[in-house]
């Protein structure tokens, strides 16, 4: 589905602040893959997402989507087949607009014309979709999104993203800013939608056991490199302890992020 070929990203090239965010990464995401990515802060996980969505171009290397070179395509063009959810629940919705208007904007990707599509039938369809979230949002379609909680907004973003039928979805720690209860609700919804619509997914998480429990493939990143790529049976046998030990063997250093260890048993 999407292929990264020897991709390198350098920030502030040629200045004293030069940092190499990604080093010579090659990755092939197949149709139907559900990849979880784990790694400490600064490992390059979000940079990887930004390169896939086209927020900025790579310093070196190429990106292909279904064998088409999209390296220079701007973000809005790639957004037509890529859905992305951010950690910040505020980034997925327009807070000063109503629920139904938000859903209308997200219903169809690409340039919108002078048609008034939001009619009675459309409202009925949106209502029916909102019922799935089991949050009572179907009764609040005329309210501004800013009145919703973070969890509700993230669930709504997820639903709206699914409605536009993307081919690849990128989840950037999309439950990290939510309280444990809402995080679980959003995660369950995510799993359900991915299964229902057979979505190719990449999910960044800080939570090791989550990375092991979900998906069919696990990537571990450290200082701009993918140091571990396991899938299938091998992934199923992974445990948090084994993962930390593996990291030890590969990098000859301790996996130091407190956050990762603390969330290990969550």
């Amino acid at each position: 589905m999407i292929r990264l070929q020897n991709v390198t990203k350098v920030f502030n090239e040629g200045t004293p602040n030069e940092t190499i965010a990604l080093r010579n990464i090659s990755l092939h995401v197949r149709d139907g893959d559900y990849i979880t990515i784990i790694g400490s802060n600064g490992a390059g996980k979000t940079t990887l997402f930004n390169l896939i969505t086209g927020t900025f171009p790579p310093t070196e290397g190429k990106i292909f989507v279904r064998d088409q070179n999209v390296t220079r395509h701007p973000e809005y063009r790639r957004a037509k087949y890529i859905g992305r959810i951010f950690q910040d629940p505020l980034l997925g919705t327009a807070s000063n607009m109503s629920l139904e208007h938000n859903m209308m904007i997200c219903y169809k990707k690409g340039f919108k014309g002078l048609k008034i599509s939001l009619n009675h039938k459309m409202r009925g369809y949106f209502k029916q979709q909102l019922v799935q979230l089991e949050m009572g949002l179907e009764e609040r379609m005329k309210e501004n999104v800013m009145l919703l909680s973070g969890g509700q907004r993230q669930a709504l973003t997820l639903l709206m993203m699914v409605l536009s039928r993307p081919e690849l979805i990128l989840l950037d720690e999309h439950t990290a800013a939510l309280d444990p209860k809402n995080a679980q609700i959003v995660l369950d919804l995510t799993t359900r939608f991915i299964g229902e619509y057979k979505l190719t997914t990449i999910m960044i998480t800080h939570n090791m056991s989550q990375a092991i429990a979900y998906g069919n493939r696990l990537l571990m990143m450290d200082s701009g490199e993918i140091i571990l790529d396991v899938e299938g049976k091998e992934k199923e046998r992974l445990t948090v302890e084994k993962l930390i030990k593996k990291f030890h063997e590969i990098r000859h250093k301790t996996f130091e992020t407190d956050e990762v260890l603390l969330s290990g048993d969550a």
Partner: protein
Amino acid sequence: MIEGILVEGLIYGIVSLGVFITFRILDFPDLTVDGSFPLGAAIMAILITNGANLWLALFISLGGGVLAGVVTAVIHNKLKIPSLLAGILTMTMLYSINIRVLGNKANLPLLKQETILTKVTSMAGGSMPDQYVVLVFFIIVAAVILGIFILFFHTDLGLTLGALGNNEQMVVSQGANPEILKMIGVGISNGLVAVSGAFAAQYQGFADISLGQGIIISGLASVMIGEFLIRSNRIGLLGLRAILGSILFKGIMYAGRYYGYYVHMTPNDLKLITGVLIILSLVLTKFRSIRVKKRTFL
């Protein structure tokens, strides 16, 4: 007197609608307005004196304004400079262009020319005093423009524009090019302003290149005053309150001009009053937003 305030309020209310689009909906503070207002007036005046069809002339004024807005948006998009600077650049360039449009003159009188207003008053045939005919005409004009404005912001494109100022990332994630959307939004805004300029020239009986001076500030003041009148998240009321704000603003300015001498104020102090009015609105909004979340759309 009162009908004069109302008519001026309605004419400049079209400017506040435009300013509302850029400042409030798109979050794109645009100063092109100071140039596109006299541009609209200049195009209308020169076409009237050359005997063009009046409605066609109005349409060309609209087009000129749209073009000015698009130029600002393109400068902002391509050179990645702040919208304020892009607007000032276009506004400055428009000063020279407006003089050229007026035939290398700074002023063009429209006395004894047939304008849309003289046509309308002669059509009414003296059934009402002329100033009331003009008032009714401008109520209709404002209502029609407000109607189109409301319809537009209910279309898919309008909704997307509404989201752009609030959350550009979301619009990009939906596969819409924000650069094109900004061109459309700023273009529409300046188109409205130019139409207002075209009507202002006909109402005042001349086009002058200094006509646009301070338009952006009075437009902004009108929008802010309007925000105290009605609280809503429906686009129709948001548009209506921009126009009502403009009428109220004209009323305040009128009062300042005619009764200001009691406190030793001269017409020269009006700009000062306008500025103080905006600062006052900002301060009041600050206090209010502590209690209620501000800025709503639709």
